C-alpha cells in the first residue's frame, strides 16, 4: 500500500519537535478526526531557517509532515507557500489512492504557519 519511500520517511522522520520561540505556528485537524498536524517556523530575511512539526495521525500524515518541513527549510516564504500536495506526494514515491487527501494536509498546515507569521509581523 505505502511506498517504500514513504515508509522510510515515516519510521525516520526529520524535524520532529517544537520551536519554543517560533515566528509562526500552524495547526490543522482535530483529535476527534484522528489527525492533527502542528508546524512551527522560524523566519529570517524572508527565509524559513527552521521548520519543525508534531503530528498525531496515520503514517501518511507523519511522512508528509516530515517531508514538507524538509522541503520548506531554507526556502523563501513565497517558495514554501507554493509547495503543492503533488510535490509532497511525489517526493514520497506516491500516496495510496485513499490517502491523497492526506498530502494536502501538511502543506496546508505550513501555509497556516506562514500566515500566522505574516499576521504577527503585519506583512
Amino acid at each position, binding site marked *: 500500500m505505502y511506498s517504500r519511500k514513504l515508509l522510510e520517511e515515516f519510521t525516520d522522520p526529520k524535524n520532529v519537535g517544537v520551536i519554543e520561540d517560533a515566528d509562526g505556528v500552524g495547526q490543522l485537524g482535530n*483529535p476527534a478526526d484522528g*489527525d492533527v498536524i502542528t508546524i512551527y517556523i522560524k523566519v529570517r530575511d524572508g527565509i524559513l531557517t527552521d521548520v519543525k512539526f508534531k503530528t*498525531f495521525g*496515520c*503514517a501518511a500524515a507523519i511522512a508528509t509532515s516530515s517531508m514538507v518541513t524538509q522541503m520548506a527549510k531554507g526556502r523563501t516564504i513565497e517558495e514554501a507557500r507554493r509547495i503543492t500536495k503533488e510535490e509532497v506526494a511525489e517526493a514520497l514515491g506516491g500516496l495510496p489512492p485513499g490517502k491523497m487527501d*492526506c498530502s494536502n494536509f501538511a502543506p496546508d498546515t505550513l501555509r497556516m504557519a506562514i500566515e500566522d507569521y505574516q499576521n504577527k509581523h503585519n506583512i
Partner: protein
Amino acid sequence: MKRIYLDHSATTHVDTRVLEAMLPYFSEKFGNASSLHSFGLEAAEALSSSREQVAAALGAEPQEIIFTSGGTESDNMAIKGSAYMCSSRGRHIITSVIEHPAVLRTCEQLEKEGFEVTYVPVDNEGILDTQFLEDSIREDTILISIMHANNEIGTVQPIKEISELIEGRGIVLHTDAVQSVGKIPVDVNELGVDMLSISSHKLHGPKGVGALYLRSGVNILPIVQGGGHERGLRPGTENIPGIVGFAKAMAIAREQLEADSRHMQRLRDSMVEKVRSRIPYSRLNGHEIKRLPNNVNMSFRHVEGESLLMLLDMQGVAVSTGSACSSKSQKASHVLTAIDPGVDYIHGSLRFTLGRENTMEEIDLVVDLLEEAVIKLRRMSPFEEGN
C-alpha cells in the same frame, strides 16, 4: 526477520492437518457431488461426512448445516432469508450497534425494503443492554440477530440469556459466531439459537467457505437461485476441498478447544498485564472477563492506531487497528464509538488477536516493540509535552 502474527481475527493460516485433508479433493477425488458416477459418489460421501463433522462440533444435526462461501454470505442468508420468509407476520428486526458490517449493512438494506430495525446499544465495556433489547420486542418482531463475540473488542454477548428471554415468542434468533467458534464453547442447543453463522478461515480452515446452522423446523427463503444444492437453500456446485478442510478445522477446533483456549487466555492475560505495567495511559477496550480468550484490544493515549500498526509491521509484527483508516478524516470504528473510550483514546486502539501457535516469547517481544513504538509516536504527538 521472523514475523509474528497477532491478527487471527482477520484470518488464520490453514492448519497442516486441514490442508492434508483437502489435498486429495483437488486433483484426484475431484468429482461433482451431484454426479451419479463413481467420481460423484466420492464427492458426495466427502460432503456428507463433512456435514456430520461440522454438525457434531456444534451439537447440531447434519441436515441443519448449510455450507456457504463464508461468514458474510451466512449472515446475509440468515437475516434476509428469515426476514423474507416471515415478512407476512411482521417486519421488525432487532440487532446491536456493534455487529459486523455483514449484519449491519444487511439490516440497512432491509430497512430500504420496508423492514424496521432496532439497534440495541452496548455499555462502556461492550456488553449488550439486554433490558433495552427486551423493551424493544414488539408484536411484529420476527428476528433478533446478535453476534456471539465481537470481532474488534472480543466481548462475548449473553446469547443464552437472550434466547431464554424470547423463548416461546416465535421470534427467530440468529447469532454471528464467526469469531467465537474455536475460541469458546459453541453449542447451538446450549445457546438456544435458531441460526448461527461460521466462517472457516477464522479457525485455521480455508478461505471461501463457511456454514449457516439452521435449526430443523425453522424456515428461510434462499437468497440465491439455481440448482437444488444444499436443500435448494444455497445452490452452486459444492466446494468439496473447501468443505472438507472446513470440516477438518471444525473437528480440530472442537477437539483442542479447552487446551487452545487455556493457552491463548494465558498469553492474553499476561500481555494485558505487561502492557499496563509498562506503558502508561494504556487502556483495555471491551470487558475484562467477558471477552474472547484470544483478544487484546488496547488504546494508547495520544497515539494514532494506524501509525502504531505500521511501526510494528516494520518490525515483523502483524496486528490490526480497531478502526478503518481510509481517508484524511479517519473515522473511528463503530464499535469503539459505541463503547466511547474518550477522544484521547478512540484513535489509538490496536487489536492483537492471538492464535493457538503463538508463544509467550512472542508476546514478550511484542510488548517490548510496542513500548518502543508508543514512546516514539508520543514524542511526535502534539498532545504530548516535550521537544
